[in-house]
């Protein structure tokens, strides 16, 4: 099996010993990984200076599959861990790839503070509307009325609008794409990797085995067809109005600007202080 993947032109970005990956047929995680390594290849990024950090969840395995320095943290904590890495060595490009529950339920606090501080880490969120790894429980992005194993009578919670949350918290780049928009996703990831400040991409991803099956979309194809029908590309529209409904998924870039990053301010202040201490 590992010989097979080595024939693929992007195989140098993948850890051959760990392939093939554990993700289900039609799972969007593989597409996200694919778009990510496409972006790395197109940018010819120095992958000795790239660190991928992931949390717990199916998408959390992505750190193990990329052939770079990588770390798989405890649930919810990849952003806090990535903060430590980035501040310790700002020359490293630190990318957090994790899931909707990991980043926004248990990890919600770390997300908003890292965005607020504008730590120069990049976050890619695979939003599949549930906790897939543990069998399909409700999560902070599960749509209202959806069926999951812990909402067998229909979800009564309103989901987060992640692009609105990221924008409000202060992210300098916010985009949302689905796994169908692979080319735009790759383009966004390239932009993400070239930004200085805290950047975020939400990727709407199919979970056909679990979320799809419980919610009348039995296969990956049916979920992708839903994305195709419902998505509308509207760049730089108001993120507050971009809630996801069964009829409408607004995709595109929402925010793109620069402001001084935490590590820029930190290191410049440190330089001032050290100069004063010596002088």
């Amino acid at each position, binding site marked *: 099996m590992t010989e097979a993947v080595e024939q693929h032109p992007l195989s140098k970005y993948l850890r051959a010993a760990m392939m093939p990956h554990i993700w289900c047929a039609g799972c969007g995680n593989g*597409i996200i990984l*694919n778009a990510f390594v496409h972006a790395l290849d197109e940018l010819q990024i120095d992958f000795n200076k790239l660190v991928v950090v992931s949390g717990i969840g199916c998408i959390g395995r992505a750190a193990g599959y990329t052939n770079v320095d990588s770390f798989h943290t405890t649930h919810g904590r990849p952003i806090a861990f990535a903060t430590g890495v980035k501040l310790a060595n700002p020359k490293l490009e630190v990318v957090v790839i994790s899931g909707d529950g990991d980043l926004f339920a248990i990890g919600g606090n770390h997300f908003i503070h890292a965005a607020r501080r504008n730590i120069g880490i990049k976050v890619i969120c695979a939003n599949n509307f549930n906790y897939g790894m543990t069998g399909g429980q409700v999560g902070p992005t599960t749509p209202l009325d959806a069926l999951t194993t812990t909402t067998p009578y229909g979800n009564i919670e309103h989901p987060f609008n992640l692009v609105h949350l990221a924008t409000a918290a202060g992210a300098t780049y916010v985009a949302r794409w689905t796994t169908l928009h692979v080319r735009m996703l790759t383009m966004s990831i390239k932009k993400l990797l070239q930004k200085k400040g805290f950047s975020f991409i939400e990727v709407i991803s199919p979970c056909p085995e679990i979320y799809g099956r419980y919610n009348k979309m039995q296969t990956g*194809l049916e979920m992708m067809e839903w994305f195709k029908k419902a998505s509308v590309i509207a760049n730089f529209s108001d993120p507050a109005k971009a809630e996801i409904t069964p009829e409408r998924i607004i995709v595109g870039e929402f925010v793109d600007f620069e402001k001084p990053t935490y590590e820029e301010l930190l290191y410049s202040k440190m330089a001032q202080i050290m100069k004063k201490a010596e002088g």
Partner: protein
Amino acid sequence: MPEKFWRTPLDIEKISKFKAEIHILKDQCKGCGFCIQYCPKKVLEESDEINARGVHPPRVVDEKNCILCSFCTAVCPDFAIFVKEKQCKDGC
């Protein structure tokens, strides 16, 4: 390049049509069907054979129709398909 031209380009002798080679890593495929569904030229279809995973990998209907858009390469979750431009001398 299209089969029929509404006006023949002046350098048609010099420019040769590219040819694609579609590589399918059959045993990597999990049968999601994305490549088949979203190929703009309908170059792929589900084959009858069963791979090591017990699913039907895609097979190429007619490689000549492939326009090398590489959407299949980009959308495959399993790194099971990729297209390359066929490198060949004249008269390919």
